[in-house]
């Protein structure tokens, strides 16, 4: 492909990024609305996938199989802890206007400027190789595309035709324009973020396109690809056999990636500093891992295809480009190149922006402010100085990366350079996690841990990387420092058998965590540190900080100080909104209290870092220093209040739960009460009706002694019938109340033969059926049929049901059937009649007390309406179920199902069944 087309495409692409970023920054149109979306936030997090993913991941996969994956599994695991770890980082950083990883560590350990500077310097040293790696990948891709394909040697080209140089220049300009456009206390760069999100989208699309092309263009689907791979022994050896070779290195890489997701400056920048809404994190918690999964889905297939189709000496880091080229699809190679370019570009831009912030705030500005002869204290406007320092730092960092790449990186694969940087930044993980979750973590401990960890990294990874490339000689690696075997950098103290990165990870972490813990345990924290620790652990409210330092100053002094770094306009606007929230008139307030001083300090911290802000504000405030005792008293008091608050909240929740329970119980009671009232009313009515008629007829008989005999007999018969009905009603009521009062089975619990019960009940009802001229048939399929229960009660149930059948079947042609059969574990008793039946909607309510179907006003009630209610309770007490169904010929079928007693032996004896 001709170089000019390539350059044109690359330039056009970068210009597009400029345009998008510019549109967003201008703050108009649809593009700028993107900034507040969780999708853009998630995509900007994907700046994690640099060209290392795009080219290096495939390269590594082609060499050693799946062990490129831990780099993406680690962040997924870290995001599992997101609600605890990342959210706390977000909250603390927003409350204190923390803008970088160095600031975070510095702020946690007593706003220590020294610690922040140390972190910054380590980060720069650790990340220059990483930036170099990105430039190298651009350069390699560029030369591979323009020269066809094959082993590329970018370092041999003259500098001016090196694609990486021009890429570095353009990217530096981009970073300068959008990463340090103006000074603002929250350090948001919406233009940069949207551009990065766009690039993340692009690299995902590109890699997926290549993957699909490989799967379906070069092979017949991925199954075909894998089966072809299985036929080539050395490929199969890498990808399918001997899985046990993933050992410590897999674990080490998972750990490094876990740490990198919050320790890398660019990740901290996009994840914490650029976050505009905490809720975006909820979405990103799963969407970001999903992105990582998606972008890695095709890495292995592409790598295998590369191994199958390309000559052995192809640069593995170039597979993504070489495959489409070899297949005769230069346009796909161009897409692949663009994907790689965007991966590199976004990483480089964000990383240099983050680094420039750190270096400017934590190294350069504190140093400049200390040099009295510069007279910075008297300069009215320092914003331009700040901006230019940052831009200069960007240029320097990029230049360092570029020269490292030209000098050093040729013999390394992309992944091993990247991992070296990962180990370097992982040195901050113990201090950050310890700082966030361990109150005892002290500044001295953090210093010791980071320093020793860094020194071990320097010795076991960085120096050997120089000597590998010829700067120090092989002697050092082979025989150790001064020829002492125990000090061999890749086998320290004789620890052999690990690859350099795993080896270094182990020793650095051992030294780092060990030093961090032991020094923290044995060196006392200063009061300031303890206060900060309380704040970081969420024990104390960030705004409580004002109480620890009773500092006062004059508002104009603070204002002019802030205006010098932030610009007068922004400083005035920020103070005005702060004053409004506190109900102070910004125009007249002169004396600044502790809270106002704290506000100004945080405002400044957002611009020049916590440590410098503290020094600057400290120079103009009057500090009434608190004694250690007093400070500790306040701190303890605060934590006690917070603890008490928490307990109170828990108690009130418990109380609320109890209240709702009580309410529910009360509602139940009210229902029961109403039912009882209904019951009393109905009983009253039911008792009065027969009484009234008995009384009425008795009075007639008394007052009319000369009634004809026939009539007299009629009346007397009515009186007797009504009396019987009354007796029956009272008996039933007594039964019901007895059953309901005890709530348990009556005393008799013996084994009862249902078949006998059926025969007995049928016999005693014979007369009734004969009177109502209904034919009763009996069908017993289970004989004997033992259940546990009360014989008399069960007879009562059957008689009740039979009585109903007799009552409702039409006289003359009425037919009733009493059947008993076995149904699995149960015995089922059914009484079928051919009466009018029961409507579906009534089938539940017939078992309620005094429920008589039909119109009670016109029909003469044919019973008290208690029979079924009593039957139901008896059956329930026997642990059974009674219900009614529609019969085949329109009648009703009442069914009772009782549990059969297991064996005759247990059934025969008297068995105690738990009550209830």
């Amino acid at each position, binding site marked *: 492909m001709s170089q000019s087309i390539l350059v044109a495409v690359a330039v056009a692409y970068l210009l597009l990024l400029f345009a998008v970023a510019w549109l967003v920054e201008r703050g108009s149109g649809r593009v700028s609305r993107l900034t507040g979306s969780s999708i853009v936030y998630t995509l900007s997090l994907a700046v994690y996938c640099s060209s290392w993913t795009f080219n290096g991941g495939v390269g590594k996969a082609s060499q050693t199989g799946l062990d490129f994956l831990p780099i993406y599994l680690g962040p997924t695991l870290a995001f599992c802890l997101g609600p605890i770890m990342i959210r706390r980082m977000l909250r603390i950083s927003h409350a204190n206007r923390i803008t970088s990883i160095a600031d975070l560590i510095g702020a946690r350990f007593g706003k220590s400027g020294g610690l922040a500077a140390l972190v910054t310097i380590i980060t720069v040293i650790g990340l220059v190789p990483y930036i170099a790696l990105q430039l190298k990948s651009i350069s390699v891709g560029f030369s591979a595309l323009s020269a066809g394909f094959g082993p590329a040697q970018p370092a041999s080209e003259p500098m001016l035709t090196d694609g990486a140089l021009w890429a570095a220049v353009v990217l530096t300009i981009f970073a300068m324009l959008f990463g340090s456009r103006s000074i603002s206390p929250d350090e948001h760069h919406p233009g940069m973020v949207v551009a990065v999100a766009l690039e993340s989208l692009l690299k995902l699309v590109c890699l997926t396109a290549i993957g699909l092309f490989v799967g379906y263009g070069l092979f017949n689907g991925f199954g075909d690809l*894998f*089966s072809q791979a299985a036929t080539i022994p050395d490929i199969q050896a890498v990808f399918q056999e001997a899985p046990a070779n993933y*050992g410590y290195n897999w674990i080490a890489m998972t750990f490094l990636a876990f740490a990198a997701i919050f320790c890398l400056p660019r990740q901290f920048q996009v994840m914490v500093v650029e976050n505009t809404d905490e809720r975006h994190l909820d979405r990103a918690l799963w969407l970001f891992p999903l992105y990582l999964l998606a972008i890695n889905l095709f890495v292995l297939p592409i790598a295998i295809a590369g191994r199958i189709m390309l000559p052995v000496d192809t640069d593995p880091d170039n597979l993504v480009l070489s495959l489409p080229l070899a297949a005769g699809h230069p346009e796909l190679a161009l897409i692949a190149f663009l994907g790689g370019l965007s991966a590199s570009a976004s990483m480089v831009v964000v990383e240099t922006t983050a680094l420039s912030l750190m270096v400017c705030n934590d190294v350069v500005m504190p140093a400049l402010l200390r040099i009295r002869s510069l007279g910075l204290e008297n300069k009215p406007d320092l914003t331009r100085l700040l901006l230019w320092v940052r831009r200069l730092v960007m240029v320097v960092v990029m230049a360092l990366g570029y020269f490292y790449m030209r000098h050093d990186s040729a013999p390394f694969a992309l992944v091993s350079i990247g991992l070296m940087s990962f180990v370097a930044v992982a040195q901050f993980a113990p201090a950050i996690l310890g700082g966030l979750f361990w109150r005892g973590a002290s500044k001295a401990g953090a210093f010791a841990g980071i320093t020793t960890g860094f020194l071990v990294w320097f010795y076991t990874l960085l120096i050997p990387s120089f000597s590998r490339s010829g700067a120090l000689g092989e002697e050092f690696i082979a025989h150790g420092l001064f020829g002492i075997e125990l000090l061999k950098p890749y086998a320290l103290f004789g620890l052999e058998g690990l690859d350099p990165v795993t080896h270094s990870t182990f020793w650095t972490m051992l030294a780092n965590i060990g030093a961090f813990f032991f020094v923290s345990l044995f060196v006392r924290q200063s009061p300031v540190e303890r206060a900060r620790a309380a704040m970081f652990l969420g024990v104390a409210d960030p705004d409580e900080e004002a109480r620890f330092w009773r500092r006062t100053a004059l508002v104009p002094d603070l204002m002019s100080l802030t205006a010098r770094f932030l610009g007068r306009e922004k400083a005035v606007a920020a103070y005005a909104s702060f004053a409004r929230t506190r109900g102070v008139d910004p125009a007249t307030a002169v004396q600044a209290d502790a809270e106002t001083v704290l506000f100004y300090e945080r405002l400044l911290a957002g611009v020049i870092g916590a440590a410098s802000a503290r020094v600057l504000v400290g120079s103009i405030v009057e500090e009434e220093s608190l004694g250690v005792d007093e400070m500790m008293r306040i701190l303890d008091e605060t934590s006690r209040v917070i603890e008490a608050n928490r307990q109170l909240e828990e108690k009130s929740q418990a109380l609320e739960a109890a209240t709702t329970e009580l309410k529910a119980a009360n509602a139940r009671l009210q229902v029961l009460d109403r039912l009882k009232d209904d019951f009393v009313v109905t009983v009253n009515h039911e008792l009065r009706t027969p009484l009234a008629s008995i009384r009425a007829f008795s009075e007639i008989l008394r007052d009319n002694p000369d009634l004809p005999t026939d009539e007299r007999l009629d009346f007397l018969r009515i009186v007797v019938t009504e009396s019987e009905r009354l007796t029956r009603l009272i008996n039933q009521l007594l039964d019901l109340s007895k059953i309901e009062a005890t709530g348990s089975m009556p005393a008799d619990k013996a084994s009862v033969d249902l078949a006998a019960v059926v025969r007995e009940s049928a016999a005693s009802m014979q007369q009734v059926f004969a009177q109502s001229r209904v034919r009763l048939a009996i069908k017993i399929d289970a004989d004997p049929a033992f259940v546990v229960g009360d014989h008399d009660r069960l007879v009562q149930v059957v008689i009740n049901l039979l009585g109903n059948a007799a009552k409702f079947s039409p006289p003359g042609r009425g037919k009733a059937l009493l059947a008993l059969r076995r149904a699995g574990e149960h015995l089922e008793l059914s009484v079928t009649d051919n009466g009018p039946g029961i409507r579906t909607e009534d089938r539940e309510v017939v078992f309620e007390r005094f429920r008589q179907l039909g119109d009670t006003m016109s029909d003469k009630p044919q019973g008290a309406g208690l029979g079924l209610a009593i039957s139901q309770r008896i059956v329930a007490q026997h642990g059974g179920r009674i219900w009614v169904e529609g019969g085949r010929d329109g009648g009703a079928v009442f069914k009772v199902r009782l549990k059969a007693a297991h064996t005759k032996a247990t059934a025969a004896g008297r068995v105690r069944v738990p009550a209830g």
Partner: protein
Amino acid sequence: MLRRTARRDRMVGLFAAGTILLNPPILNLVGGTLFGWPALYLYLFGVWGLLIAVIGLISEGSPGQANERDKDSASR
């Protein structure tokens, strides 16, 4: 308060499960091929996808569900 703690605990549990399932030695138990695909490839992406799905369920679904649950237990 209770809800937030429960959600956090679940995420920590998920972290532990993920760490164990996606690292050696459990990882090394998977080998050979499945339907012609490398079994380890399927295993890693399968477990990974599952992990993401559960994170999604916990972090997106839980506030609403928890509210409903609260209501349920109140009415009971």
